[in-house]
């Protein structure tokens, strides 16, 4: 931007601000458009003064834009975050960093403050599999950047906290039916009520839902694969594949999802109890390098299923006008199963020449107690200390079974079972100097039997420069604990257990400026982050292979084996900007978010490379108009992701280098009350994608072969209409 343009912009902004100040209605509208965020500091405060860059997606935003899952909220409405769908678990990135195949374990997901990332593999889901009944959501707080200072592991890219409604905002009964025509159906029942319990005010909110999806169908391949490495015959991809030695055909049975879920919250006085139960079963329509690396083509018996049960009991009490004490007892039970059926001997253990059924088991159970004290020293919020301790016990189990297709004999690999403990202490100090300056500094120390210790500091300063203007500077660090799978899994055919792994670590600095003009808001920010000790599965050198074979860790037939190691580092910097506002009595709403970044990953003794799958330029825009008076709300939202390297672009040897093109996705939504039927409302949307494929290589040829030098990329469901009805009674 030239100097003249810069000063013109500043002058225009100043004039605009002055005119806005003169308008009381605009001022009040502006205050009512301020968002309040709790997650950044565990204290309710305006987003402008919170020690993080954040996006608040409201229930109204979700409704008016036809949002049905967290990844859609991220893509269509958030600043700095993006999500990609490989037709199985959605992957989430932020600020140009997306670590493919991480099962969401670099993003901390909370529901009402309860951690959803499970303790075996750190998994969190952001698609429908998150199992959060959607009408129950009051808001989603998306916090960008490292957030371990108050939350511990997994908060490297950011923290997403889904906050559910209070009963006053969900009163009565609610029946919902919604369908992606003709592929999915969701049915839900919800209830909210305020009442007296044991003589005091209490409230209950609950919603149960069932989601099922089948299809659409996709056509893959044909991909010539060649001979089975064990039998020498053309590899057998099962009866539904194109033919011997060839993978592909029409996938009609392996793109499905089943998700029953229920969430309930009871509040009575100082006590709060919440519970969530869900199961997430899904099949992936193609072999890939992430979740399904073998199996017959289009076999519906190859699928993944998870079950979660969470319980959270909280108590809070103001001990004095200075001290608040919060206690939280929590526990979760989680298990994971992945079933893959293969007719090919090379996918199975030696001797299983007729094929096998492989099952990966992972289980974790954990319980913990967190105590937190808040000290408002001057009783006016200007000097507040927060200290907390968190203790957790967890039990982990994992194993992989191979069932011989011919004899049904079961062989088990990688069996592991153990108990672990974790203890953490954290502290945060906030100070307000006059009305203009806010300071926030904190640190958390984690001691974990799994990896040792981690220290996560954060310091932030905000300066209210003038009316509506806020400058913010933040330094933060975060970590991700190695998962039990990364640390302990081993099998004599392919993998040696990691002898020791350090936690992954990120530190980041960012600066931003925000200006509010009545109900309008402009945001500009810059950031830089440094990641180290990233864990990746690395091949053993010939010497290491020989040593592992000699020590009995690997079988004598293992020609290639891997081990998880702290190998990579990552350097990332960039900018983000946002504009949002409301006009015409807040009936017209609009917003725009853009992020540009430069991220490079490097391994020791190798040149740095771009990240795969992660676009370096992405953003979204939205506009909606509420016609009111019984008429609908019309909304249009869209997001765009810049070109990105495919997941196997750097190690697949494909020609040409596979990339996803610029992705543009648009969604139009109409919603409103159904005329003539009190309590009944509708929502209909149409979603169109401008591209036909994703950044994920599909099929068994995850690397180039002479018969298939070019990669086949996974397809996109390009057009879908959704209709839904809700009846409130």
């Amino acid at each position, binding site marked *: 931007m030239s100097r003249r343009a810069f000063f013109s912009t500043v002058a225009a902004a100043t004039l605009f601000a002055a005119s806005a100040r003169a308008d*009381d*209605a605009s*001022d*009040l*509208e502006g*205050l*009512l*458009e*301020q*968002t*309040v*965020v709790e997650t950044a500091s565990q204290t*309710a*405060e*305006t987003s402008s003064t919170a020690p993080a860059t954040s996006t*608040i997606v*409201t*229930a*109204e*935003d979700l409704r008016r834009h036809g949002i049905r899952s967290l990844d859609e909220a991220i893509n269509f409405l958030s600043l700095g975050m993006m999500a990609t769908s490989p037709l199985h678990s959605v992957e989430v990135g932020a600020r140009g960093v997306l670590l493919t195949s991480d099962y969401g374990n670099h993003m901390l997901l909370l529901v009402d403050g309860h951690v959803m990332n499970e303790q075996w593999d750190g998994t969190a889901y952001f698609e429908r599999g998150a199992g959060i009944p959607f009408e129950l959501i*009051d*808001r989603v*707080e998306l916090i960008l950047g490292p957030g371990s200072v108050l939350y511990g592991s997994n908060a490297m890219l950011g923290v997403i906290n889904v*906050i559910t409604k209070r009963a*006053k*905002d969900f009163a009565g009964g609610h029946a919902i039916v919604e369908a992606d025509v003709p592929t999915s159906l969701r049915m839900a029942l919800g209830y909210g009520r305020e009442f007296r*319990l*044991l*003589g*005091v*005010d*209490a409230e209950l909110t609950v919603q149960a839902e069932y989601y099922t999806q089948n299809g659409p169908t996709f056509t893959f391949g044909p991909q010539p694969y060649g001979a089975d490495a064990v039998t020498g015959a053309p590899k057998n991809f099962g009866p539904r594949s194109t033919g011997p030695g060839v993978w592909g055909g029409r996938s009609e049975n392996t793109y499905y999802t089943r998700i029953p879920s229920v969430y309930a919250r009871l*509040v*009575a*006085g*100082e*006590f709060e109890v919440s519970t969530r139960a869900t199961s997430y079963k899904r099949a992936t329509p193609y072999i890939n390098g992430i979740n399904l690396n073998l199996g017959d083509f289009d076999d519906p018996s190859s699928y993944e299923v998870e079950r979660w049960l969470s319980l959270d009991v909280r*108590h809070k*009490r*103001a*001990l*004095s*006008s*200075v*001290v608040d004490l919060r206690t939280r007892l929590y526990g979760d039970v989680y298990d994971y199963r992945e079933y893959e059926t293969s007719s090919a001997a090379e996918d199975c253990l030696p001797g299983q020449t007729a094929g096998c059924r492989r099952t990966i088991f992972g289980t974790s159970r954990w319980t913990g107690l967190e105590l937190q004290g808040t000290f*408002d020293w*001057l*009783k*006016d*919020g*200007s000097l507040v200390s927060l200290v907390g301790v968190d203790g957790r016990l967890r039990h982990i189990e994992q194993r992989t079974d191979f069932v011989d297709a011919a004899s049904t004999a079961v062989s088990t690999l990688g069996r592991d079972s153990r108990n672990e403990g974790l203890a953490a202490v954290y502290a945060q100090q906030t100070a307000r100097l006059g*009305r203009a300056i806010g300071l926030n500094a904190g640190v958390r120390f984690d001691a974990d039997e799994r990896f040792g210790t981690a220290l996560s500091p954060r310091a932030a300063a905000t300066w209210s420069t003038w009316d509506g203007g806020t400058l913010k500077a933040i330094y933060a660090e975060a970590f991700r604990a190695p998962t039990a799978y990364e640390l302990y899994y081993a099998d004599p055919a392919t993998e040696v257990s990691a002898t020791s792994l350090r936690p992954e670590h990120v530190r980041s600095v960012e600066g931003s400026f925000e200006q509010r003009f009545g109900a309008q808001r402009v945001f500009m920010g810059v950031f830089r982050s440094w990641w180290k000790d990233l864990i990746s599965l690395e091949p053993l050198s010939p010497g290491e292979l020989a040593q592992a074979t000699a020590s009995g860790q690997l079988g004598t037939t293992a020609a290639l084996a891997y081990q998880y190691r702290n190998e990579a580092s990552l350097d990332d910097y960039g900018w983000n900007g946002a504009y949002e506002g409301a006009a015409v*009595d*807040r009936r017209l709403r609009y917003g725009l978010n853009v992020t540009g970044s430069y991220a490079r990953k490097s391994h020791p003794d190798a040149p740095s490379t771009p990240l795969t799958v992660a676009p370096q330029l992405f953003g979204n825009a939205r506009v909606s108009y509420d016609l009111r008076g019984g008429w609908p709300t019309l909304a249009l939202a869209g997001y765009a992701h810049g070109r990105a390297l495919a997941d196997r672009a750097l190690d697949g040897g494909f020609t040409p280098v596979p990339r996803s093109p610029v992705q543009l996705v648009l969604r139009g939504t109409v919603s409103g009350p159904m005329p003539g039927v009190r309590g009944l409302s509708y929502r209909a949307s149409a979603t169109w994608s401008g591209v036909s494929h994703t950044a994920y290589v599909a099929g068994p040829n995850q690397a180039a072969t002479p018969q298939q030098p070019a990669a086949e990329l996974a397809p996109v469901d390009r057009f879908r209409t959704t209709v839904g009805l809700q009846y409130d009674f």
Partner: protein
Amino acid sequence: MRGPCLSRRRSLQLALGWAVLREGLARAEDVTVPLDLQVELLAKVAAYDRNFAARAGTEARCLIVRRPGVAESARVSTHVHKAIGGLSAIAGLPAVPVLVDWSGPAALKETIKAQRAAIAYLAPGLGDDVESIAAALDGVDVLSVAAIASYVAKGVVVGFDLVSGKPKLIVHLGQAKKQNVAFKAELLKMARVIE
């Protein structure tokens, strides 16, 4: 003899447990909108009251009513007192915050009249007394404001709620008329109105 003795002890334990549980259950008043934001909203909302200037006179005197012995009430009132003191003006008039201990509806009414208060801000801890406050303030020229959203339905003129992470204004129009508060239509368009 042993049986009844154990039974009494058991009864005592149960009674004690019940008292502890009930004490724990009893306090449920959440301030959802940050207090600094409440004070900013309060200052803006007052400007929409057509009768505010006449009521206030030369200064916007704001009583902050707290219940003695309730920790949350003390904390909120101290915070709001300081925040109001830091305002440059309320509806163009100098802001004068005054802390008042709750001692009953009649006393509050007299204090409002004696101090010529333009605003009465009710801190948490007064939930059981809001109806009696509303009755006492019938005919008293004052803008009553609540820290707790649920107080509005019981008879406070203005309150603040947090819905989907954004503050919402709640206005009790019936009580407003009783207390000679006349809000402009622009404000009511932005508020949830209780008749």
